[in-house]
């Protein structure tokens, strides 16, 4: 039976209004409500369902980030994950942390933990990078099934239905493989009280990137972070001719 590694990220909750820091170096994260990346929730749900269907033997959740990432891991444990690994990244390293580093960490852990399947959310809602699954697969030289909206397990083979621009694409990948979860894969469960209680007793291991031989080296520099331009008010035109004239003026016709 498969051993599944799930990557989860702690991000600012999507219902919170984002504020840009006055020095334009980033967004305000202090005192702001965070939660698990919605796509990662879907990934965790899928892994837990596989365990319930007896397709997976053990599910391990991983998160790279500051101490508070442990809260996110506890949520994953409450959803049914068996154990959690917290890779502690703080301070300057946290600012520099990019998907490339996370992929290296996940790849190393997949090998250490003898995982057959690595599942992550398709992208994080704070950086929208959509890179981690793909890079992890490349580093491990494993096949990948990204934007998965349906996963079916066969014998040593996974049939994945992918959501792409043109519609739905079905691919078959051999395990071990890396998958990334898309929105319509499943609807994550709410962690219920008995499971929340049980989660407190489940193991949570702490590591650092150094332990895994990964150096958090800066590859790029964030120049500035700005608010998107304020939406201009529209104007109501009295008739079609005026509309055509305005479009011509604006250079759209």
């Amino acid at each position, binding site marked *: 039976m498969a051993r599944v590694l799930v990557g989860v990220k702690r991000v600012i*909750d*999507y*219902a919170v209004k984002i504020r840009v820091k006055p020095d334009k170096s980033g967004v305000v994260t202090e005192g702001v*409500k965070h939660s698990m990346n919605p796509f990662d929730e879907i990934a965790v749900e899928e892994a837990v369902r596989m365990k319930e269907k007896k397709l997976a033997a053990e599910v391990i959740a991983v998160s790279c980030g500051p101490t508070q990432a442990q809260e996110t891991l506890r949520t994953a444990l409450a959803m049914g994950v068996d154990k959690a690994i917290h890779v502690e990244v703080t301070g300057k390293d946290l600012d520099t942390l990019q998907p490339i580093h996370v992929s290296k960490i996940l790849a190393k852990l997949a090998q250490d933990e003898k995982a057959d399947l690595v599942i992550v959310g398709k992208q994080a809602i704070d950086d929208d990078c959509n890179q981690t699954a793909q890079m992890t697969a490349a580093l491990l030289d494993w096949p990948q099934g990204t934007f998965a909206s349906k996963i079916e397990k066969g014998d040593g083979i996974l049939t994945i239905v992918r959501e792409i621009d043109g519609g739905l694409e079905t691919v078959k990948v051999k395990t071990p493989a890396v998958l990334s979860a898309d929105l319509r894969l499943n609807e994550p469960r*709410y962690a219920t009280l*008995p499971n929340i*209680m049980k989660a407190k007793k489940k193991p949570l291991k702490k590591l650092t990137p150094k332990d895994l031989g990964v150096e958090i080296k800066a590859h790029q520099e964030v120049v500035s972070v700005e608010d998107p331009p304020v939406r201009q008010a529209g104007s109501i035109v009295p008739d079609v001719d005026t509309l055509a004239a305005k479009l011509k003026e604006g250079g759209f016709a």
Partner: protein
Amino acid sequence: MQRIYSSSLQKINQISQKCWKSTSTRVELTQVRYPKLKRGNYSVISDKHISTFEKIIPGRVLTSATDDLESFNTDWLRTARGNSSVVLKPKSTEEVSEILKFCNQQRLAVCPQGGNTGLVAGSVPVFDEVILNLSLMRKIESIDTASGVIVCEAGCVLEELDNVLREKDLMMPLDLGAKGSCQIGGNVSTNAGGLRLLRYGSMHANTLGLIAVKADGTVVDALNCLKKDNTGYALHHLFVGSEGTLGVVTKVAIQCPHVPQAVSLMFLGLSDFASVMETTQRAKGFLGEILSSCELMDLECADAVVQNMKLKLPLERMPFYMLLETSGSNAAHDEEKLNAFLEAVMNQGLVLDGTVITEPSRLKAVWHLRECIAEALLRDGYVYKYDVTLPAQKFYDLVPFFNDKLKEAGALRCCAFGHLGDGNVHFNVTSTEFSYKLLGLIEPSIYEWTSKHRGSISAEHGIGLKKRDFLKFSKTAEAIEMMRDIKQVMDPNGILNPYKDLGEARGHEARTTQAFSRTIPAGLQAREPKFAMPKEDSEQTALRTELENLISSIQDKQKEVNDANLADKCGDMGDAPKIRLATKKMLKGHINKVTTCHYSGDSRSNYIVQNRKLNYFLLI
């Protein structure tokens, strides 16, 4: 050819409009559904009136000739529809004042309207009252972050106010399912309750002051922004909860609490009501000072939400669900209190299952499950909605009392949900369409039951049109009389929201048509008058009937003629001369004797002869 084409196009348009309207199931006119309601002695809207309105608020007068007034005339619950042909949309207190002054002079009935989300048909006309809609009065005048006071116009939407306040770390003290549409003026005028009354108090507590316009156009400036102001009668409290019958609220000052740092929501599933009661007690003990909301919904409500709104519940199907929200200043402290509470209730087997939510996105989603119950039930077809306060133990008893009877008579659902922490239960029955039979099985039985258990027949929804005949189940005759006294002083012509709250204006009680009630059962005639009236004999009865008939026939004749009123005829006359009263002589003597008579040289002065025994004055 073109003419024929366009006229047939018009016909097609008309037919398709008719079809559309009929398939969209127009709500029955209130005056048709409740034929016992009689239109009061008010003027009928004329073109002259409309042109005057146009002068006061140019471009903001909607008439049935040019606009579709259906949404203004129909209530949110789709149970009442008025027949108004005019909607006025003022933008300032001054405009409201001029409009009301004119309407008062012309004896035009007015129906003040905000977001039109009321649940007792109080915000739509019954007949053809002029609709005074305040939606355009949306300015926020000021937000004082130091004192937490917001001053804004009555047409501001509750949710929008809350969003603006949250940017300054404040929040509105009330929260209800209708927040996306309801306006603060309406909230104040109906003393709206909501989900967080338990923690932040009612509108009476949070409305520091307001500006209202009386029926005659006088602007009452009771806009105080101070927490403490004991200077005379607290006039603003008169308007809070008066449902637009004493004045039109145009501006309010609301005390806003600070946004809590840590909000947690528990969604719990329980097996029976006894467990619900125990859990509530535990919650008050373990969570006391941080508890900000305590709500209940039963399985039928949950099913309605799942089926009609296509939403998913966090838990499996269980007989009862509770939502407990805590708001505190320290997440870690609150988490400790929550954990202690949850461990206790789980270990004692009070709670079957539950979940705890702290993420803002999830909080909204789970609260929505409770807030959309009203809409979910509405989608069944027709909702019979009741809102009563009951003693804690009896909170859920209405459902077993009515369930079997009503289901037999064709009801779809019979369920209860509500503000468990306040003892305020929303008892709802749904059916595919309105049925007099079902209505008769529920009313007045539910009010009698509530009154018997010393509850309130309307906890937060107010009286409006639907409950006006049941006011006596919760208030004594003397109290209602005093309310009529106040109404008489504030609105002598009875133009503000007539037919609602207290029913007919004073002087018309003898002809009050009790559209909704049946006879009061003997047990409830407990409120005996102070003086026992002497028994009547048949002659007296006959005489009294004759007298009443004479009075009503004279009134009818008056109405027929109705060519003028005293105010119009004498309005331009000069004032009468000042009366100087001086006692000339005290007359004593046998009754029926006129013992003195004086003549006056001045034709304008008169003499008054008073007979104390028979208590009359003779003015000569």
